[in-house]
Protein backbone atom coordinates (compact mmCIF):
# COMPACT_ATOMS: atom_id res chain seq x y z
CA UNK A 1 0.00 0.00 0.00
CA UNK A 2 1.30 3.45 -0.89
CA UNK A 3 1.10 6.42 1.39
CA UNK A 4 -2.30 8.11 1.01
CA UNK A 5 -2.45 11.85 0.47
CA UNK A 6 -1.16 14.40 -1.98
CA UNK A 7 1.42 12.46 -3.97
CA UNK A 8 3.75 13.70 -6.72
CA UNK A 9 3.52 10.42 -8.64
CA UNK A 10 1.01 9.96 -11.45
CA UNK A 11 -1.70 7.29 -11.54
CA UNK A 12 0.47 4.74 -13.35
CA UNK A 13 3.39 5.17 -10.94
CA UNK A 14 1.07 4.88 -7.92
CA UNK A 15 -0.40 1.64 -9.32
CA UNK A 16 3.08 0.25 -9.93
CA UNK A 17 4.15 1.09 -6.38
CA UNK A 18 1.05 -0.59 -4.94
CA UNK A 19 1.74 -3.70 -7.02
CA UNK A 20 5.39 -3.77 -5.94
CA UNK A 21 4.25 -3.82 -2.34
CA UNK A 22 2.71 -7.28 -2.71
CA UNK A 23 4.33 -8.85 -5.79
CA UNK A 24 8.00 -8.29 -5.01
CA UNK A 25 8.17 -11.33 -2.74
CA UNK A 26 5.66 -13.48 -4.65
CA UNK A 27 6.22 -16.32 -7.09
CA UNK A 28 4.83 -14.56 -10.16
CA UNK A 29 4.05 -17.82 -11.91
CA UNK A 30 1.33 -18.43 -9.33
CA UNK A 31 -0.51 -15.16 -10.07
CA UNK A 32 -3.42 -16.08 -12.31
CA UNK A 33 -5.70 -13.04 -12.21
CA UNK A 34 -5.40 -9.34 -11.46
CA UNK A 35 -8.46 -7.19 -10.66
CA UNK A 36 -8.01 -3.43 -10.94
CA UNK A 37 -10.24 -0.68 -9.55
CA UNK A 38 -10.08 3.03 -10.28
CA UNK A 39 -13.12 5.25 -10.05
CA UNK A 40 -12.44 8.01 -12.56
CA UNK A 41 -9.13 7.51 -14.38
CA UNK A 42 -10.61 8.81 -17.63
CA UNK A 43 -12.15 11.94 -16.16
CA UNK A 44 -9.34 12.86 -13.76
CA UNK A 45 -6.29 11.60 -15.62
CA UNK A 46 -7.40 11.58 -19.26
CA UNK A 47 -6.85 7.84 -19.72
CA UNK A 48 -8.81 6.57 -22.70
CA UNK A 49 -8.16 2.90 -21.86
CA UNK A 50 -7.31 2.70 -18.16
CA UNK A 51 -7.21 -1.10 -17.93
CA UNK A 52 -4.63 -1.24 -20.69
CA UNK A 53 -2.56 1.60 -19.21
CA UNK A 54 -2.59 0.24 -15.67
CA UNK A 55 -1.99 -3.38 -16.68
CA UNK A 56 0.89 -2.17 -18.86
CA UNK A 57 2.35 -0.38 -15.83
CA UNK A 58 2.18 -3.56 -13.75
CA UNK A 59 3.44 -5.76 -16.57
CA UNK A 60 6.39 -3.43 -17.21
CA UNK A 61 7.33 -3.73 -13.55
CA UNK A 62 6.88 -7.52 -13.52
CA UNK A 63 7.42 -8.78 -17.09
CA UNK A 64 7.22 -12.44 -16.02
CA UNK A 65 3.59 -12.07 -14.98
CA UNK A 66 1.18 -14.15 -17.09
CA UNK A 67 -2.02 -13.09 -15.41
CA UNK A 68 -5.44 -12.26 -16.82
CA UNK A 69 -6.44 -8.66 -16.09
CA UNK A 70 -9.99 -7.75 -15.08
CA UNK A 71 -11.61 -4.33 -14.75
CA UNK A 72 -11.78 -1.44 -14.54
CA UNK A 73 -13.95 -1.74 -11.43
CA UNK A 74 -15.33 1.46 -9.94
CA UNK A 75 -14.35 0.75 -6.36
CA UNK A 76 -11.98 -1.48 -4.47
CA UNK A 77 -14.95 -3.11 -2.78
CA UNK A 78 -16.43 -3.97 -6.16
CA UNK A 79 -13.15 -5.51 -7.38
CA UNK A 80 -12.63 -7.46 -4.15
CA UNK A 81 -16.20 -8.76 -4.19
CA UNK A 82 -15.87 -9.90 -7.82
CA UNK A 83 -12.49 -11.52 -7.22
CA UNK A 84 -13.73 -13.44 -4.18
CA UNK A 85 -16.78 -14.61 -6.11
CA UNK A 86 -14.61 -15.83 -8.97
CA UNK A 87 -12.25 -17.63 -6.59
CA UNK A 88 -15.21 -19.23 -4.90
CA UNK A 89 -15.96 -20.95 -8.19
CA UNK A 90 -18.85 -18.78 -9.23
CA UNK A 91 -17.59 -17.51 -12.55
CA UNK A 92 -13.90 -18.22 -13.11
CA UNK A 93 -13.28 -20.20 -16.32
CA UNK A 94 -10.09 -21.68 -14.90
CA UNK A 95 -8.67 -22.66 -11.56
CA UNK A 96 -7.38 -19.50 -9.89
CA UNK A 97 -4.02 -19.49 -8.22
CA UNK A 98 -2.98 -16.31 -6.50
CA UNK A 99 -5.18 -13.32 -7.32
CA UNK A 100 -4.12 -9.70 -6.91
CA UNK A 101 -6.75 -7.03 -6.30
CA UNK A 102 -5.43 -3.52 -6.79
CA UNK A 103 -7.13 -0.16 -6.33
CA UNK A 104 -5.66 3.18 -7.33
CA UNK A 105 -6.72 6.81 -7.72
CA UNK A 106 -5.05 10.12 -8.52
CA UNK A 107 -7.19 13.09 -7.52
CA UNK A 108 -5.23 15.96 -6.01
CA UNK A 109 -3.51 17.30 -9.13
CA UNK A 110 -6.62 19.31 -10.09
CA UNK A 111 -8.31 22.19 -8.24
CA UNK A 112 -10.96 20.78 -5.84
CA UNK A 113 -13.90 22.42 -7.63
CA UNK A 114 -12.75 20.99 -10.96
CA UNK A 115 -12.31 17.55 -9.39
CA UNK A 116 -15.83 17.76 -7.95
CA UNK A 117 -17.22 18.73 -11.35
CA UNK A 118 -15.41 15.90 -13.13
CA UNK A 119 -16.47 13.36 -10.50
CA UNK A 120 -20.07 14.48 -10.79
CA UNK A 121 -19.99 13.23 -14.39
CA UNK A 122 -20.00 9.74 -12.89
CA UNK A 123 -23.19 10.43 -10.96
CA UNK A 124 -26.74 9.89 -12.09
CA UNK A 125 -27.61 12.46 -14.82
CA UNK A 126 -30.89 13.24 -13.07
CA UNK A 127 -29.13 14.13 -9.82
CA UNK A 128 -26.45 16.01 -11.73
CA UNK A 129 -29.09 18.22 -13.35
CA UNK A 130 -29.93 19.51 -9.87
CA UNK A 131 -26.27 20.08 -9.01
CA UNK A 132 -26.55 17.28 -6.49
CA UNK A 133 -22.91 16.49 -5.77
CA UNK A 134 -22.01 13.71 -3.32
CA UNK A 135 -21.52 16.17 -0.44
CA UNK A 136 -24.91 17.71 -1.26
CA UNK A 137 -26.68 14.35 -1.17
CA UNK A 138 -24.65 13.42 1.92
CA UNK A 139 -25.91 16.60 3.57
CA UNK A 140 -29.54 15.74 2.76
CA UNK A 141 -29.02 12.33 4.36
CA UNK A 142 -27.27 13.81 7.37
CA UNK A 143 -29.89 16.48 8.12
CA UNK A 144 -32.67 13.91 7.91
CA UNK A 145 -30.73 11.42 10.05
CA UNK A 146 -29.95 13.98 12.77
CA UNK A 147 -33.59 15.04 12.88
CA UNK A 148 -35.15 11.57 12.66
CA UNK A 149 -33.10 10.10 15.50
CA UNK A 150 -32.42 13.27 17.50
CA UNK A 151 -28.69 12.86 17.11
CA UNK A 152 -26.80 15.99 18.20
CA UNK A 153 -24.63 17.66 15.59
CA UNK A 154 -21.73 17.49 18.05
CA UNK A 155 -21.72 13.70 17.61
CA UNK A 156 -20.57 14.25 14.03
CA UNK A 157 -17.61 16.24 15.36
CA UNK A 158 -16.67 13.39 17.70
CA UNK A 159 -16.36 10.91 14.82
CA UNK A 160 -13.92 13.25 13.07
CA UNK A 161 -11.90 13.68 16.27
CA UNK A 162 -11.74 9.90 16.83
CA UNK A 163 -10.75 9.09 13.26
CA UNK A 164 -8.05 11.76 13.22
CA UNK A 165 -6.75 10.32 16.49
CA UNK A 166 -6.48 6.94 14.76
CA UNK A 167 -5.01 8.52 11.62
CA UNK A 168 -2.33 10.18 13.71
CA UNK A 169 -1.07 6.67 14.49
CA UNK A 170 -1.07 5.56 10.85
CA UNK A 171 2.13 6.51 8.99
CA UNK A 172 0.36 6.06 5.65
CA UNK A 173 -2.66 8.24 6.44
CA UNK A 174 -3.43 11.42 4.51
CA UNK A 175 -3.98 13.36 7.74
CA UNK A 176 -1.76 12.47 10.67
CA UNK A 177 -2.82 15.34 12.89
CA UNK A 178 -5.24 15.23 15.78
CA UNK A 179 -8.11 17.74 15.84
CA UNK A 180 -10.52 19.02 18.48
CA UNK A 181 -14.30 19.15 18.51
CA UNK A 182 -14.05 22.90 18.54
CA UNK A 183 -11.95 22.90 15.37
CA UNK A 184 -14.52 20.69 13.66
CA UNK A 185 -17.37 22.92 14.80
CA UNK A 186 -15.59 26.02 13.48
CA UNK A 187 -14.58 24.52 10.13
CA UNK A 188 -16.40 26.03 7.12
CA UNK A 189 -19.75 24.68 6.03
CA UNK A 190 -19.56 22.69 2.80
CA UNK A 191 -23.24 21.71 2.57
CA UNK A 192 -24.98 22.32 5.88
CA UNK A 193 -24.99 20.58 8.29
CA UNK A 194 -21.78 19.07 6.86
CA UNK A 195 -18.62 21.02 7.57
CA UNK A 196 -15.25 20.57 5.95
CA UNK A 197 -13.94 18.49 8.85
CA UNK A 198 -16.94 16.16 8.61
CA UNK A 199 -15.91 15.22 5.07
CA UNK A 200 -13.26 12.85 3.77
CA UNK A 201 -10.64 14.53 1.60
CA UNK A 202 -9.85 13.73 -2.00
CA UNK A 203 -6.60 11.77 -1.98
CA UNK A 204 -4.08 10.00 -4.14
CA UNK A 205 -3.07 6.48 -3.31
CA UNK A 206 -3.02 2.83 -4.19
CA UNK A 207 -3.23 -0.47 -2.42
CA UNK A 208 -3.14 -4.13 -3.37
CA UNK A 209 -3.84 -7.43 -1.68
CA UNK A 210 -3.17 -11.01 -2.67
CA UNK A 211 -5.86 -13.66 -2.35
CA UNK A 212 -5.15 -17.34 -2.52
CA UNK A 213 -6.96 -20.60 -2.04
CA UNK A 214 -4.26 -21.99 0.23
CA UNK A 215 -3.92 -20.94 3.86
CA UNK A 216 -2.73 -17.38 4.39
CA UNK A 217 -2.63 -14.96 7.31
CA UNK A 218 -6.33 -14.09 7.19
CA UNK A 219 -9.45 -15.68 5.75
CA UNK A 220 -12.31 -13.96 3.88
CA UNK A 221 -15.06 -15.83 5.61
CA UNK A 222 -18.07 -14.12 4.09
CA UNK A 223 -19.06 -11.34 1.75
CA UNK A 224 -22.19 -9.69 0.44
CA UNK A 225 -23.37 -6.93 -1.84
CA UNK A 226 -26.46 -4.78 -1.53
CA UNK A 227 -28.00 -2.22 -3.84
CA UNK A 228 -30.50 0.55 -3.29
CA UNK A 229 -33.04 1.99 -5.74
CA UNK A 230 -31.27 3.74 -8.63
CA UNK A 231 -32.63 7.22 -7.95
CA UNK A 232 -31.76 8.84 -4.63
CA UNK A 233 -35.09 10.66 -4.54
CA UNK A 234 -37.02 7.40 -4.66
CA UNK A 235 -35.58 5.96 -1.45
CA UNK A 236 -38.31 5.35 1.03
CA UNK A 237 -36.20 6.81 3.85
CA UNK A 238 -33.04 8.72 2.96
CA UNK A 239 -31.72 8.40 6.52
CA UNK A 240 -31.37 4.63 5.99
CA UNK A 241 -28.82 2.72 3.88
CA UNK A 242 -30.71 -0.33 2.64
CA UNK A 243 -27.73 -1.49 0.55
CA UNK A 244 -25.51 -1.75 3.63
CA UNK A 245 -28.14 -3.66 5.59
CA UNK A 246 -28.56 -6.12 2.72
CA UNK A 247 -24.82 -6.58 2.15
CA UNK A 248 -24.10 -7.02 5.84
CA UNK A 249 -26.86 -9.55 6.31
CA UNK A 250 -25.57 -11.64 3.39
CA UNK A 251 -21.96 -11.47 4.58
CA UNK A 252 -22.81 -12.42 8.17
CA UNK A 253 -25.00 -15.25 6.98
CA UNK A 254 -22.23 -16.63 4.76
CA UNK A 255 -19.67 -16.29 7.55
CA UNK A 256 -22.07 -17.59 10.19
CA UNK A 257 -21.17 -14.87 12.68
CA UNK A 258 -23.00 -12.38 14.85
CA UNK A 259 -22.09 -8.74 15.16
CA UNK A 260 -21.14 -9.38 18.78
CA UNK A 261 -18.29 -11.61 17.56
CA UNK A 262 -16.62 -8.76 15.67
CA UNK A 263 -13.64 -6.91 17.13
CA UNK A 264 -12.69 -4.39 14.46
CA UNK A 265 -14.50 -2.69 11.56
CA UNK A 266 -13.34 -0.54 8.67
CA UNK A 267 -16.40 1.34 7.51
CA UNK A 268 -17.43 3.92 4.91
CA UNK A 269 -17.18 7.36 6.51
CA UNK A 270 -17.00 9.72 3.53
CA UNK A 271 -19.09 11.96 5.82
CA UNK A 272 -18.93 11.38 9.55
CA UNK A 273 -22.67 10.73 9.82
CA UNK A 274 -22.18 7.77 7.47
CA UNK A 275 -20.06 5.99 10.09
CA UNK A 276 -23.06 5.95 12.43
CA UNK A 277 -25.59 5.00 9.76
CA UNK A 278 -23.47 2.18 8.35
CA UNK A 279 -22.71 0.77 11.82
CA UNK A 280 -26.42 0.80 12.61
CA UNK A 281 -27.43 -0.76 9.29
CA UNK A 282 -24.83 -3.49 9.82
CA UNK A 283 -26.60 -4.36 13.05
CA UNK A 284 -24.00 -3.22 15.57
CA UNK A 285 -26.40 -0.68 17.08
CA UNK A 286 -30.05 0.20 16.76
CA UNK A 287 -30.86 3.09 14.43
CA UNK A 288 -29.83 6.40 15.93
CA UNK A 289 -27.87 4.97 18.84
CA UNK A 290 -24.27 4.56 17.62
CA UNK A 291 -23.44 8.10 18.72
CA UNK A 292 -24.26 7.17 22.30
CA UNK A 293 -21.80 4.26 22.08
CA UNK A 294 -19.11 6.64 20.88
CA UNK A 295 -19.97 9.07 23.66
CA UNK A 296 -19.64 6.20 26.16
CA UNK A 297 -16.12 5.41 24.93
CA UNK A 298 -16.85 2.68 22.40
CA UNK A 299 -15.83 2.58 18.69
CA UNK A 300 -12.28 3.34 19.80
CA UNK A 301 -9.13 1.24 19.70
CA UNK A 302 -9.16 -1.17 22.65
CA UNK A 303 -12.87 -0.61 23.36
CA UNK A 304 -15.35 -3.43 22.71
CA UNK A 305 -15.54 -2.56 18.99
CA UNK A 306 -12.80 -0.61 17.20
CA UNK A 307 -14.07 1.35 14.20
CA UNK A 308 -11.83 2.80 11.50
CA UNK A 309 -8.56 2.12 13.25
CA UNK A 310 -6.79 3.26 10.06
CA UNK A 311 -8.28 6.74 10.48
CA UNK A 312 -11.09 5.83 8.08
CA UNK A 313 -11.72 7.74 4.92
CA UNK A 314 -11.93 10.85 7.06
CA UNK A 315 -8.25 10.82 8.13
CA UNK A 316 -6.56 7.97 6.29
CA UNK A 317 -7.90 9.59 3.11
CA UNK A 318 -10.16 8.63 0.25
CA UNK A 319 -8.52 7.72 -3.06
CA UNK A 320 -11.88 6.43 -4.25
CA UNK A 321 -10.91 3.34 -6.29
CA UNK A 322 -8.42 2.28 -3.66
CA UNK A 323 -10.37 2.81 -0.44
CA UNK A 324 -11.92 -0.66 -0.18
CA UNK A 325 -8.48 -2.22 -0.63
CA UNK A 326 -6.84 0.05 1.93
CA UNK A 327 -9.51 -1.16 4.38
CA UNK A 328 -8.55 -4.73 3.55
CA UNK A 329 -4.89 -3.93 4.22
CA UNK A 330 -5.83 -2.36 7.56
CA UNK A 331 -7.75 -5.44 8.66
CA UNK A 332 -4.86 -7.67 7.61
CA UNK A 333 -2.56 -5.58 9.81
CA UNK A 334 -5.03 -5.64 12.72
CA UNK A 335 -5.77 -9.35 12.53
CA UNK A 336 -2.12 -10.34 12.24
CA UNK A 337 -0.92 -8.04 15.01
CA UNK A 338 1.02 -5.76 12.66
CA UNK A 339 -0.84 -2.49 13.33
CA UNK A 340 1.76 -1.07 15.72
CA UNK A 341 0.57 1.74 17.97
CA UNK A 342 -2.97 1.53 16.62
CA UNK A 343 -3.24 -2.23 17.25
CA UNK A 344 -6.61 -3.18 18.71
CA UNK A 345 -6.01 -5.63 21.54
CA UNK A 346 -7.21 -9.15 20.76
CA UNK A 347 -8.41 -8.38 17.21
CA UNK A 348 -9.45 -11.72 15.72
CA UNK A 349 -12.54 -11.05 13.61
CA UNK A 350 -13.14 -8.00 11.43
CA UNK A 351 -15.60 -6.56 8.96
CA UNK A 352 -15.14 -4.19 6.04
CA UNK A 353 -17.96 -2.10 4.64
CA UNK A 354 -17.32 -0.23 1.41
CA UNK A 355 -19.86 1.75 -0.56
CA UNK A 356 -20.29 3.52 -3.86
CA UNK A 357 -22.08 6.85 -4.19
CA UNK A 358 -24.44 7.62 -1.32
CA UNK A 359 -24.62 3.94 -0.50
CA UNK A 360 -26.11 3.20 -3.93
CA UNK A 361 -24.30 -0.08 -3.61
CA UNK A 362 -22.53 -1.46 -0.59
CA UNK A 363 -20.07 -4.31 -0.09
CA UNK A 364 -19.42 -6.03 3.23
CA UNK A 365 -16.68 -8.55 3.98
CA UNK A 366 -16.05 -10.67 7.06
CA UNK A 367 -12.37 -11.30 7.64
CA UNK A 368 -11.10 -13.81 10.17
CA UNK A 369 -7.65 -14.35 11.58
CA UNK A 370 -6.42 -17.82 10.70
CA UNK A 371 -4.62 -18.18 14.00
Amino acid at each position, binding site marked *: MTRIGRLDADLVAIAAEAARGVLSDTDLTLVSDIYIASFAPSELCGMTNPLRSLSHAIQTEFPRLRATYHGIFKTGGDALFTALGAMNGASSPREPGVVMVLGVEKMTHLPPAKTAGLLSQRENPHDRAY*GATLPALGALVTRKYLEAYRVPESALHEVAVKNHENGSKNPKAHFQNTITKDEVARSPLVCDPLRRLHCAPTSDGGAAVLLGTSQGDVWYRGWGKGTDVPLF*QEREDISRFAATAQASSLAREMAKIRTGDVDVVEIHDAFTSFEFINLEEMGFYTMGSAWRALEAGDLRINSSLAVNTSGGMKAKGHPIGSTGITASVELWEQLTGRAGVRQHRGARLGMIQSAGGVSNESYVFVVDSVS
Partner: protein
Amino acid sequence: MTHDDASSTFSAGRSSAPLLTLHRCRASHTFFFAHKNCPFCGANLEEIDSQPDAVLVSHTTVRVSPTGTPFKLGLARVACGAQTLCIVEGEIGTVPGEEVVIIEKGGLYHAQPRKPR
Protein backbone atom coordinates in the same frame (compact mmCIF):
# COMPACT_ATOMS: atom_id res chain seq x y z
CA MET B 1 -57.16 11.46 -13.65
CA THR B 2 -56.75 13.65 -10.62
CA HIS B 3 -54.92 12.33 -7.65
CA ASP B 4 -56.30 14.46 -4.92
CA ASP B 5 -54.94 13.14 -1.68
CA ALA B 6 -52.65 16.09 -0.92
CA SER B 7 -55.41 18.25 0.45
CA SER B 8 -55.68 16.81 3.94
CA THR B 9 -51.97 17.06 4.72
CA PHE B 10 -51.44 20.77 4.62
CA SER B 11 -52.48 23.21 7.23
CA ALA B 12 -53.57 26.03 4.98
CA GLY B 13 -55.40 24.17 2.22
CA ARG B 14 -54.27 23.90 -1.37
CA SER B 15 -52.00 26.29 -3.18
CA SER B 16 -53.05 27.84 -6.45
CA ALA B 17 -49.93 26.61 -8.27
CA PRO B 18 -50.40 24.30 -11.28
CA LEU B 19 -50.97 20.61 -10.67
CA LEU B 20 -47.98 18.29 -11.06
CA THR B 21 -47.89 15.33 -13.41
CA LEU B 22 -46.70 12.20 -11.62
CA HIS B 23 -46.49 8.55 -12.61
CA ARG B 24 -48.20 5.75 -10.71
CA CYS B 25 -48.42 1.99 -11.03
CA ARG B 26 -51.43 -0.09 -10.05
CA ALA B 27 -49.74 -0.89 -6.73
CA SER B 28 -49.73 2.87 -6.03
CA HIS B 29 -45.97 3.34 -6.26
CA THR B 30 -45.81 6.94 -7.41
CA PHE B 31 -42.93 8.81 -8.99
CA PHE B 32 -41.95 12.19 -10.28
CA PHE B 33 -39.50 10.56 -12.66
CA ALA B 34 -41.06 9.18 -15.83
CA HIS B 35 -39.86 5.58 -15.61
CA LYS B 36 -40.77 3.22 -18.44
CA ASN B 37 -42.09 0.74 -15.86
CA CYS B 38 -42.40 0.75 -12.10
CA PRO B 39 -38.90 0.15 -10.66
CA PHE B 40 -40.43 -1.68 -7.69
CA CYS B 41 -42.98 -4.04 -9.29
CA GLY B 42 -42.41 -3.70 -13.04
CA ALA B 43 -46.02 -2.73 -13.77
CA ASN B 44 -47.02 -0.14 -16.33
CA LEU B 45 -47.28 3.43 -15.14
CA GLU B 46 -50.06 5.89 -15.75
CA GLU B 47 -49.91 9.65 -15.53
CA ILE B 48 -51.78 11.26 -12.65
CA ASP B 49 -52.20 14.82 -11.47
CA SER B 50 -51.10 15.82 -8.00
CA GLN B 51 -51.49 18.90 -5.90
CA PRO B 52 -48.17 20.79 -5.81
CA ASP B 53 -48.17 21.01 -2.01
CA ALA B 54 -45.27 19.18 -0.41
CA VAL B 55 -43.05 19.03 2.63
CA LEU B 56 -39.30 19.31 2.59
CA VAL B 57 -37.88 15.99 3.78
CA SER B 58 -34.43 17.51 3.94
CA HIS B 59 -32.46 20.41 2.50
CA THR B 60 -29.01 21.94 2.37
CA THR B 61 -27.22 24.97 1.07
CA VAL B 62 -24.56 23.76 -1.35
CA ARG B 63 -21.69 26.15 -0.71
CA VAL B 64 -19.01 24.28 -2.65
CA SER B 65 -20.31 23.47 -6.11
CA PRO B 66 -18.78 23.03 -9.55
CA THR B 67 -20.36 26.31 -10.68
CA GLY B 68 -19.00 28.17 -7.67
CA THR B 69 -22.43 29.66 -6.92
CA PRO B 70 -24.13 28.56 -3.69
CA PHE B 71 -27.68 27.25 -4.04
CA LYS B 72 -30.24 25.43 -1.91
CA LEU B 73 -31.04 21.82 -2.70
CA GLY B 74 -33.91 19.92 -1.16
CA LEU B 75 -35.85 16.69 -1.24
CA ALA B 76 -39.60 17.28 -1.23
CA ARG B 77 -42.43 14.81 -0.72
CA VAL B 78 -46.00 15.27 -1.91
CA ALA B 79 -48.88 13.71 -0.03
CA CYS B 80 -49.05 10.53 -2.12
CA GLY B 81 -45.45 9.77 -1.10
CA ALA B 82 -43.63 10.65 -4.33
CA GLN B 83 -40.41 12.54 -3.74
CA THR B 84 -38.25 14.76 -5.89
CA LEU B 85 -35.02 16.64 -5.64
CA CYS B 86 -35.72 20.34 -5.93
CA ILE B 87 -34.06 23.71 -5.99
CA VAL B 88 -35.27 25.51 -2.87
CA GLU B 89 -36.22 29.14 -3.23
CA GLY B 90 -36.65 31.67 -0.45
CA GLU B 91 -35.97 31.40 3.25
CA ILE B 92 -36.55 28.11 5.02
CA GLY B 93 -35.90 26.88 8.53
CA THR B 94 -33.23 24.39 9.51
CA VAL B 95 -35.58 21.62 10.64
CA PRO B 96 -37.00 19.27 7.97
CA GLY B 97 -40.76 19.27 7.47
CA GLU B 98 -41.29 22.76 6.09
CA GLU B 99 -44.36 23.08 3.87
CA VAL B 100 -43.54 24.07 0.31
CA VAL B 101 -45.13 24.33 -3.12
CA ILE B 102 -43.47 22.51 -6.02
CA ILE B 103 -43.25 24.31 -9.32
CA GLU B 104 -41.63 23.09 -12.52
CA LYS B 105 -39.25 25.51 -14.17
CA GLY B 106 -37.02 24.68 -17.10
CA GLY B 107 -37.33 20.95 -16.58
CA LEU B 108 -36.39 21.11 -12.88
CA TYR B 109 -38.61 21.18 -9.82
CA HIS B 110 -38.38 24.18 -7.52
CA ALA B 111 -39.73 24.41 -3.97
CA GLN B 112 -41.12 27.66 -2.63
CA PRO B 113 -42.15 28.14 1.01
CA ARG B 114 -45.94 28.13 1.47
CA LYS B 115 -45.69 30.65 4.26
CA PRO B 116 -43.35 33.52 3.42
CA ARG B 117 -41.02 34.39 6.32
